[in-house]
């Protein structure tokens, strides 16, 4: 899957996250989170896992997280990817 256009998913409500994706030459993941100090590595690992599963190797993925759990991260990232995707 390729990120062909800007897209977003999610909210900035507590326990959720907002995901922005856009085309880019390389893969860049930017994470803002209220629990960044404790959990940035786990959030990143989850995002990378979803990107890998969809075969996304390039694009800019920005997330603004407020303590979302794994399944929320997965759902939001997937939705953003599908909205911005070109199969």
């Amino acid at each position: 899957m390729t990120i062909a256009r800007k897209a977003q998913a999610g909210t900035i409500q507590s326990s959720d996250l907002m995901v922005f994706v856009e085309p880019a030459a390389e893969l860049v993941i930017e994470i803002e989170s209220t629990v960044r100090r404790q959990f940035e590595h786990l959030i990143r690992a989850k995002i990378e896992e979803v990107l890998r599963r969809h075969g996304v190797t390039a694009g800019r993925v920005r997330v603004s997280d407020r303590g979302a759990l794994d399944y929320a991260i997965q759902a939001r990232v997937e939705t953003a990817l599908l909205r911005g995707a070109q199969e």
Partner: protein
Amino acid sequence: MVTDILGSADSASARAFIEAQGLAFEPGFDDLVGVFERGALVAVGARERDVLKMLAIAPAERGGGLLGALVTELARRASAAGHDALFVFTKPECVPSFEAMNFSLLASGGRAALLEHGRGLERYLEANRGAVREGANGAVVMNCNPFTLGHRHLVEEAARRVDTLYVFVVREDRSAFSFDVRLRLVREGTRDLQNVRVLDTSRYAVSAVTFPAYFLKRPGDAASIRLDLDLLLFAQRIAPFFHVRRRFFGTEPDCAVTRAYADGMHRVLPAFGIEAVEIARKEARGVAISASRVRAALRDGHVDGLEDIVPETTAAFLRSDEARGVRERLRAGGGRHA
């Protein structure tokens, strides 16, 4: 559900709602949205480009998800409109609510606070760490549209009085000369000055976010609050990072907005241990040199004969093919900085 506020009746009640929460209603926005409960407004917020403002929640509804819903919707629209960054103007007591949504504080003082989503300022400073020098340093923030002998005079005078002088060139691209050209002409025109470093302001000084009046001429109370925030951001965040103890600026004879900014420097900066130093404008043929004189000459089709008001580096650019676009735009006429 967050919906657009359209129509004159709803717009009027939005305005009354915003003012009842102690905020000034500022016309000039791309989106005005709100939440209605049983026909009555309980939350309102607006977006102008990448700036959120006039966010207000009814007292009885605070502490729930309304603010998050408003910001989510406005952030979605800002991103859809192509904006990467997101700023918010709010009251100082609301800062923690925004910090909980991954906004970080840029400046706060008196009745207003400015935050940005994410950590852009931190990244900007980090990217410029290589330019930081110890010492008693100075700073000038200039648009340089384009770089003149007046700017050169100010930079020379300032550089003589400090260890390192940082020249911050306004990044906002709303001037006749593009940011890239303005930055390049400042670099070329100051290359021989050993203790001068030329940097870009990013969005953090004299930008459409921090000081919109400079670009839009929108006088009034709201503009002066933002002017203070621009200077507080400089004094609290930028100056300490670069060890800046003095901020220099040229005497402004004509423009009221620029003069208000100069007054602001005298009023705001000293409390932070920063001296505001005004330097008399250099004159040529009895008139203060200004970039607007250069633009006026170009508008009249005079490319030559500017040697007594611009340095050779700028003059060479003005004569070049590369400047043809600028010359034509100026001749066609434009706005305040055109």
